[in-house]
C-alpha cells in the first residue's frame, strides 16, 4: 500500500513542491494544511503515515502542532521542514519527538532518503 503523507506548510509553493516529490515517488498525499491548527485537525481525520511539518507558520507553529500530535500519538512520524539558521528550533523539534528534519532549500532525493529511512520503506 502506498505511503500516506500529509504536507503542512504556509507557503503554497512549498506544499506543491513537496506534493509533487511524493506523488512522483508513488506516495499518496492524503492531506495538506497551511497552519498548525488545521494540521492537527486533519491529522486526526486522515491518520497519515507521515507528516512533513514547516516550523514557522501563523496561528499555530509547527513545533506546537508537533508536540500535540506526539502527545496523542507517540508513534507519529513527523519530519520537520526548516530554513537554514533555525538550528535551535530544529533542536527543539527533535527533542519534542520529530523523527528527522529537512532543511530548505532541499533536493528531491534527500527528501525521499529521509522519508524512506524513517518509514522503513526502502
Amino acid at each position, binding site marked *: 500500500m502506498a505511503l500516506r503523507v500529509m504536507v503542512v506548510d504556509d507557503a503554497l509553493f512549498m506544499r506543491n513542491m513537496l506534493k509533487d516529490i511524493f506523488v512522483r515517488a508513488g506516495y499518496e498525499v492524503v492531506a495538506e494544511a497551511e497552519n498548525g491548527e488545521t494540521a492537527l485537525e486533519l491529522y486526526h481525520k486522515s491518520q497519515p503515515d507521515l507528516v512533513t511539518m514547516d516550523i514557522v507558520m501563523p496561528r499555530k507553529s509547527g513545533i506546537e502542532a508537533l508536540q500535540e500530535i506526539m502527545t496523542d500519538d507517540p508513534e507519529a512520524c513527523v519530519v520537520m521542514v526548516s530554513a537554514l539558521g533555525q*538550528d535551535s528550533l*530544529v*533542536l527543539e*523539534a527533535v527533542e519534542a519527538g520529530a523523527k528527522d528534519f529537512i532543511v530548505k532549500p532541499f533536493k528531491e532525493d534527500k527528501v525521499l532518503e529521509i522519508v524512506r529511512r524513517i518509514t522503513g520503506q526502502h
Partner: protein
Amino acid sequence: MDMSQYRELFLSETREHISNLNKLVVILEQEPDNRETIDALFREAHSIKGMAATMGYDRTAQLSHHLEDLLDGFRSTGEVPVPAIDYLLAGIDLLDGLLDDLQSNRPERAIDVFLREPLPVASVGEGVALEQSLAAADENDEGTAKGPGLASAQPAPAAEINEPAPAEDTDFFQVLVDLAEDTPASAARCILILRELEKAGDLISSKPELATLRGGAPCTRLQVWLRTSLAKGHIKEALLRVSSVASVRFIDDRRKRSERRGSDEGARTVRVRTDLLDQFVNLTGELLTRRNMLNRATLTRDWNGLNQALVQTGRLIDDLHHHVLQARLMPLENIAGRLPRIVRDLSRKTGKKVTLRLLGTDVGIDRMILEELTDPLVHLVRNAVDHGIEHEGTVTVSARREKGLILIEVADDGKGMDSAHLRRKAVERGLMTPAHADTLSDRDALMLVCLPGFSTAAEITDTSGRGVGMDVVKAAVGNLSGTLEIISTPDRGTRFQMRLPLSIAIIRILLISCGGRTLAIPLSRVLRTLDLTTGEIDNSGKQSAFRLDEESIPLYPLAEALGLTAGTAGETTWVVLTEIKGRRIGLRVDRFIGQREAFVKALGFPLNLLTGLSGATIEGDGQVVFIVDPQALFENLQLSTKP
C-alpha cells in the same frame, strides 16, 4: 577526597603488578609447589585489590579479591592444581582488560561470567583439601561468601552485581561518526544519530554528551561507546542512511597498546628516584650561580671570568642533560615482563618445548623508545619460537649498553636461516630479478625478510600473527633512529639485533645544502654518501640513475621533492644513498656540510602537516634547520624495481 590525582599512579602500578602476576604464574606452572611463588602471587593480587578498592574501581577490586582468595587457598595447601594455571591466567587477562577500560575512561567490563566459572580442581582429593582451606581462609575475610562446596563458595560475590550478565556474543566498541561539512542543525542531527544507535544496543557514553548536544553545541564528530550484539556492518549501514552522515568508523576495544598510550597523554607517568630529583635541584642551583657569574663578568667586561663561567655552564648543562635522560629511563623489564607468558602460550600452541632466557632486563631505555619497541620485540620473540626453533630450544632476549647505543637481541638456537633459500623466495615473489638476487651478500640476503610482501599468507601462521611483519619491525626500529641486523649461523641459530639510541631527542644528523637551504638528514637514514662525476650518471631514460655494486640506483633531486629549486649542476654530483621500502635510492643534494649531534624539536602546527619533515633543530647562529625524513618523502613514489 578527590581520587583522580592518583589515577595515573594506580594504572601504572597495577600494570606492573599484572606483569608480575603473569611472570609468576608461568614460573608456578614449572614448579607447582614453589611456596615462595604462591606467596608472591598472593601479595600481587592483594596489592591490586587494595588499590582498586581505594580508587573505587569495584569490579577490579572484586576480581583481584577473587584471585587473592583462590591463591590464599593454594597457599594453605602448598600446591596448585594444574587446571588452576589456565584459570589464573584467564583471570589476569580479565584484570588487564579492566585496566584497559579504566585507562580509556570506560566503565569496567563485566566480570560475573568469569566469577561464575567453576573453580579448577585437579582431583577429588585435592579439591576437598582446597575446599577446606578456602573455607578456612574465608573465616578471616568478611568479603567472601561462605558456602559448603568449592564451586558454590566462590560465585557468590557475583550476586553483588546488580547488572544482568551481557549476552554471550555482545561486543563493546567505539563508533566514530563524522558529519558532512556544513551540516545544518548539527546538534539535532547528532541527537538523531544517538537515537539510531540506541536502537542498535546499549549506549554507554558519547562525546559530546547528550546534555551538551541538547544545549545546541555544534558538532561535526560524534564518538559513541556502544555495547551491542549487532554486526558492525549492519550498524554502519543504518547510520549511513541518516542524512548528513559522511562516514562511520569503528574503533575496537582491543587497540594496540602503543596506540592507546599515544592517545592517552595523561597516562604518561614515570617514576623518578628522589635522589635524581635532588640532583636536579642542585644542578639548577649551580646554574643560577653561573648566571650571576656571567652577569658580573659581562658588566665588568671581565673576559677571563666570562670564559670561565661559560665553560662551567656548558659542563653543568651536559650534566643536567645526562640526568634528565636518566629520569626518562625505564628498565627493559617493563616490556620484557610480558614475554614469559607469551612464550609459554606459544609453546603450548605449537607443541614446541621452548625455554626463554632474559638477560639484562634491568638495562634502562628511554621510555618513549621502550613503548615503541613493545610490538617489535614481541614479534621477534614470536618469530623466534615460530620459525627459529624446530622442536625444542632456547630463545634468549638480552639487552646491554654498547658505546652510545643500546643493543637488544633476540636469539634462538635453531637451525638458522638459509640465505640461498631467501634469495630464491625473493625472486619467486617478484621482488627482484635473479641477477639482482645473486649480487646480494649473504648478510643482505638475510635482510630480505624485512621486505614488505616477503612473507606470504601461507607462512603467516596463527602464532606470528598477521599484520605485523618483519618490515614493520624494521620500520619501527628505523623510526627510532635505530638499526636492525640479522646474523644467522647454520645449525647455531639466528640473532636479531636492534641497536637503538639512548634517547631519541638527540640524534646524529648529516647537514646538507639543498636548493639554497641548509637541511639535515638523520644519519640513521643515510647508507652512505657519494660524489659522482657527470659521466657516472645515466640520464638516458625517464629516470636518472647511477650504478653501484652492479645495481642501477634511481637518482632523485631532493630539492624538487621538497618543492625547492635545485642548484645548478657542477662537475660533481653529491648524492645521499638511502633506503626506501627495502630499495636503495640516491638523493641529489647541492653539497655536504658535515655531521653533528642535534637536539630535535617537534614541528608545531601547521608545519607538522608537511610531508617529509620530521622535525627541526637550531644552529648555533639561531638558524632553524629542518630535518628531512626521506622515508616519508619518497615512500609513495613508484620505485622502479628492475636493476
